């Protein structure tokens, strides 16, 4: 077995299209952490996110030939996952991300600091879940995934001013929740 260093996206895509199925593992390894994080934030559930991302990878593999700019594989993958998450939310009939009253308790002896951090996280997650899916998507792509507005436009197919407005509204809603609980 020869050792491969991780080749650039365009090269991996070419390998897979040439019939080297195993090369697709590079794509998974490179992007799964970010995509899982994004989908978890969109769906409010790690299990649902894992399903959505796994389905997206399979879909991406099957339609790899239609990826017009292999060098922008990342954006293309985010687009597939975004669509997958949206249809998942629609399937759930309402876009309710159920971030319920999970008390972030692990055990009574656990450190207070961890509980406070978990509390804060729960607060932010709830605020995120209260946003509309569009705003949630915009906020997460911008601030959690660190995409530029240009990349976000490529992922979502929306115009930059629209995305900016969504991010702004999301920030305002989030700040209000944080201030109320300060």
């Amino acid at each position, binding site marked *: 077995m020869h050792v491969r260093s991780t080749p650039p996206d365009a090269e991996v895509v070419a390998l897979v299209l040439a019939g080297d199925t195993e090369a697709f593992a590079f794509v998974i390894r490179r992007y799964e952490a970010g995509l899982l994080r994004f989908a978890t934030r969109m769906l409010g559930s790690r299990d649902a996110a894992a399903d959505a991302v796994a389905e997206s990878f399979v879909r991406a593999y099957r339609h790899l030939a239609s990826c017009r700019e292999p060098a922008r594989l990342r954006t293309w993958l985010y687009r597939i996952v975004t669509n997958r998450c949206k249809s998942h939310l629609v399937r759930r009939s309402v876009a309710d991300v159920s971030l319920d009253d999970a008390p972030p308790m692990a055990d*009574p*002896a656990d*450190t*207070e*600091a*961890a509980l406070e951090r978990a509390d804060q996280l729960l607060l932010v997650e709830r605020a995120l879940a209260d946003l509309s899916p569009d705003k949630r998507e915009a906020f997460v792509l911008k601030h959690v995934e660190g995409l530029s507005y240009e990349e976000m436009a490529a992922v979502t197919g929306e115009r930059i001013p629209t995305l900016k407005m969504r991010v702004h509204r999301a920030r305002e809603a989030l700040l209000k929740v944080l201030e109320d609980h300060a």
Partner: protein
Amino acid sequence: MKRWVVLALAAFLALPLAAQSVRGRLEGRIPSAAIPAVDSLIQFASQEGLPTDPLIQKALEGGAKHVPGPRIVAAVQVSLGQLRDARDLLVRAGDQPPVLPAEMTTVAWALRRGLAAPLVERVVAALARPPRAAAMHAVADLVAHRFDPDSAAQLIIEAVHDGVPRERLLEVSTAALQQVQRGHTRAEAFAIVRGQLPNLPASARPPRGNVAGARRLASPAPP
């Protein structure tokens, strides 16, 4: 009265468990090809006066997780090495052999949680009297939160010397973590908590007496 009945029943149930051979506990739980090797590692431990339960637990854990036999044997071997290191460390730090099994387990925990051996040795030497489990976990919790290891050990040692009961040492580390949450630097947090010793803020205390909804395990848990 009721409690005595429960205790007697528990002791009765525990007897056959204790008497059960190691092989008996492993059979059906780990791949049979791995049993002889695991059994002999456990015999070594027993002959050397090391606790055997952590090794049995490691094997059972591997079996439950469907790990292949050779990897289970390797993991038990690693655990055995950790217990030997723990015993040697305790002796170096001044414990008289034969060293208490619980202390070996405690030190093995501390090392697995990432505390450096010299630091563990220092805590052991400073707290001549066992049990040291709470102290070790308190230091490890602080280090896991990026507190300076030496200062963390110092704080916990001082807490013991100032008369904080052993079972409340985790509250000392919690108090320091709370100060950081309130915006203090780690050094300031140490100074504040040290200044308050031996008093501790009321924090997440273990529950008392009856706890609604709590369940007991069907069979006695291992020590």
